[in-house]
């Protein structure tokens, strides 16, 4: 049932006078038919019907004054299929019929065609979810990728470059080939993408182009790089000396390194600068001589510290070095093993290196590099941090080391 109400024809209109009815009860009406004339406070206007049907009831008499919004007639639309079309709720306010000036013919088409909602909306929604960034679109075009396929596959709101790249990789590479690409950090764009590429083809590419295999750095390697880089930034200078090797050769029950640690520790006790190190803008001077020793096996190099070497006997020092070698093999050094030094020693002499210079360990004052035995002499290269030791002190230190190397008392147990 469709209700016709007294229309509001102007802002100031509260009620209207029904001038005349153009239809009778039981009469058929079509959409747009004029059914009545009403008078507002300003003019006489026609009232049209929005719907087709049969006039079921006429509620007002001609001449009646009726409040705006009140029902003046009811039209039965049950026989009309159009009832289903307009889904708007059947409230009096919404159903206000279209009004026409009596003079003019209806100019506005009031017929409401059924809106083909579903298909249009679906189509729009599909377009909305099919967003593709300009760069992704350009990339897709470059490789002839059907973006709709990628969209359907990823079920994403919008495609970005990485989606297109992921699609390309998956589409043109076997999983094993992809793993190989990843391992060598290769860009898939290096390949012609017109067929499925397998592991063998990637491997062939790697060999043809001699692609290096990137290896991640171990924590150890990172620590060494950091130490060595810091060391290279220090103001380092070097002193080159030779010491007499006669006593070392005579007392070969201990290695040259062991004897030298003992001698260095003794001399360090006379030269405070070599027992000092820089830490957090402070100069720390140790009461004892602790010496870092370079020990290496295969690829690993460590600088464990012989602590308080000045207080140790030669046997104890030798035992400590053996201990270090065991730990190196077992890979069981602890952080505590590497701390507390203020000076270092590195011996490549046993490998036949005649002379070299070494990098200063961490915050140490210096390091001595020991070369091989040549014509009764051993080369010593002292690298010193100029912030801690000046050249004069370094020269005095080396003088003492040379003297002790020739002191037979030094080589007693």
């Amino acid at each position, binding site marked *: 049932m469709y209700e016709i109400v007294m229309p509001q024809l102007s802002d100031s209109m509260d009620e209207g006078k029904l001038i005349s009815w153009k239809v009778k009860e039981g009469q058929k009406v079509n959409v747009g038919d004029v059914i009545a004339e009403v008078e507002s406070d300003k003019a006489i206007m026609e009232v049209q019907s929005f719907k087709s049907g049969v006039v079921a009831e006429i509620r007002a008499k001609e001449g009646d004054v009726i409040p705006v919004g009140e029902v003046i007639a009811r039209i039965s639309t049950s026989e009309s299929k159009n009832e289903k079309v307009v889904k708007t709720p059947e409230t009096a306010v919404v159903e206000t019929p279209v009004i026409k000036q009596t003079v003019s013919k209806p100019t506005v088409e009031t017929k409401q065609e059924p809106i083909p909602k579903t298909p249009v909306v679906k189509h729009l929604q599909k377009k909305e979810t099919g967003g593709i*960034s*300009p*760069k992704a679109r350009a990339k897709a075009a470059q490789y002839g990728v059907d973006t709709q396929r990628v969209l359907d596959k990823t079920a994403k709101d*919008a495609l*970005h*470059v*990485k*989606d297109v790249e992921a699609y390309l990789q998956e589409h043109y590479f076997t999983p094993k080939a992809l793993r190989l690409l990843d391992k060598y950090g290769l860009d898939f764009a290096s390949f012609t993408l017109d067929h499925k590429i397998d592991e063998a083809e990637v491997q062939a590419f790697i060999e043809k182009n001699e692609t290096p295999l990137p290896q991640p750095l171990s924590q150890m390697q990172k620590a060494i790089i950091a130490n060595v880089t810091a060391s290279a930034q220090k103001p380092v200078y070097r002193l080159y000396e030779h010491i007499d090797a006669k006593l070392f050769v005579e007392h070969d029950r201990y290695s040259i390194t062991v004897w030298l640690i003992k001698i260095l520790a003794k001399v360090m006790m006379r030269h405070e600068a070599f027992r000092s190190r820089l830490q957090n803008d402070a100069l720390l001077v140790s009461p004892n001589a602790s010496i870092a020793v370079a020990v290496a096996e295969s690829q690993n190099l460590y600088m464990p510290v012989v602590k308080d070497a000045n207080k140790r006997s030669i046997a104890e020092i030798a035992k400590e070095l053996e201990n270090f070698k065991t730990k190196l093999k077992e890979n069981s050094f602890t952080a505590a093993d590497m701390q507390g030094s203020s000076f270092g020693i590195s011996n490549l002499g046993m490998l036949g290196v005649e002379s070299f210079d070494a990098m200063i360990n961490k915050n140490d004052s210096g390091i001595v590099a020991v070369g091989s035995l040549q014509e009764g002499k051993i080369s010593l290269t002292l690298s010193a941090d100029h912030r801690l030791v000046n050249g004069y002190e370094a020269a005095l230190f080396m003088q003492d080391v040379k003297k002790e190397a020739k002191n037979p008392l030094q080589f007693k147990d």
Partner: protein
Amino acid sequence: MLYREALNKALDEVMSADDSVVTLGEDVGLYGGSFRVTEGLVEKYGEKRVIDTPIAELSIVGNAVGMAIGGLRPVAEIMTGNFSLLAFDQIINHMAKLHYMSNGKIILPMVVRFPQGVSRQLAAQHSESYEQMLCAVPGLRVLSVNDVNYAYHALKYAILSDDPVVFIEHELLYNKKGEVDFEQKLNPFEARIAKEGSDITIVSYLKMVDDVMLAVPEIEKALGCSCEVIDLCSLNPVDYETLKKSIEKTSRLVMVEEDHKTGGYGGQIVSWAAEEMFYALDAPSLRLAGEDVPIPYNRGLELASIPTPESITRDIVAWGKKNDV
């Protein structure tokens, strides 16, 4: 060195080197400038070259235009950008156009400098930004100063240049500390890469550059990406070359500015990217700007009306997540 000290040093050096350089404005002389930029200059160069003017901005710039026509190199200080509106007729109709309209016979080697922007609770009439209006006037060079080193070099350049320059400072930057490299050959029209990065290009200028820099670590953490931050330095002309290189690398653009969003300056940068960089973009560009409201007096509302490190972080992270950064 402080931002204001860098400006002072630039002025001082140019004034000592070139007798034709004069500075004029309200309180620039005996008082040393409202933000102490002209401190100590009147003692050195006298009242003929460091001129205290009445509170009449139109006449400050009008006189500067006359001085420039007459062969001087005037540096006009407007106490704050808010008052520059009163001088806009001189700035737009005379300073910007006389060179063109005289067929190049008149040159205007002059600078109008002022601070602008949202300071602390100065309310609606004292928190304005006018770069969008000034950049829309052909004939003006518009420089915006975030960096202390840039302040020194760019002001010297502006004074010695034969073109009319509007030199924009920011009220909250005068006490910013920074290093000045006096030996540097700085091109004032080159944008400054405040931080290099590979995934998002964040473009900004004036004080917002610092707020962006505060936001960046959080953004990078939340999105797992790296941001490139560009300080435009020169707003007109714009160093599109630097922007282009950056966007080609990152394929994403974020514009951050303090001024109101509608009609704001950043629209120029984003629309340029839409015109010239379309196929390089992998996400819709994002514009972060002030709200379209007069700047409120209340501190909480004031901060809510402009981008802050917190809101910059929040908005860029949300945009990044939405756009698969």
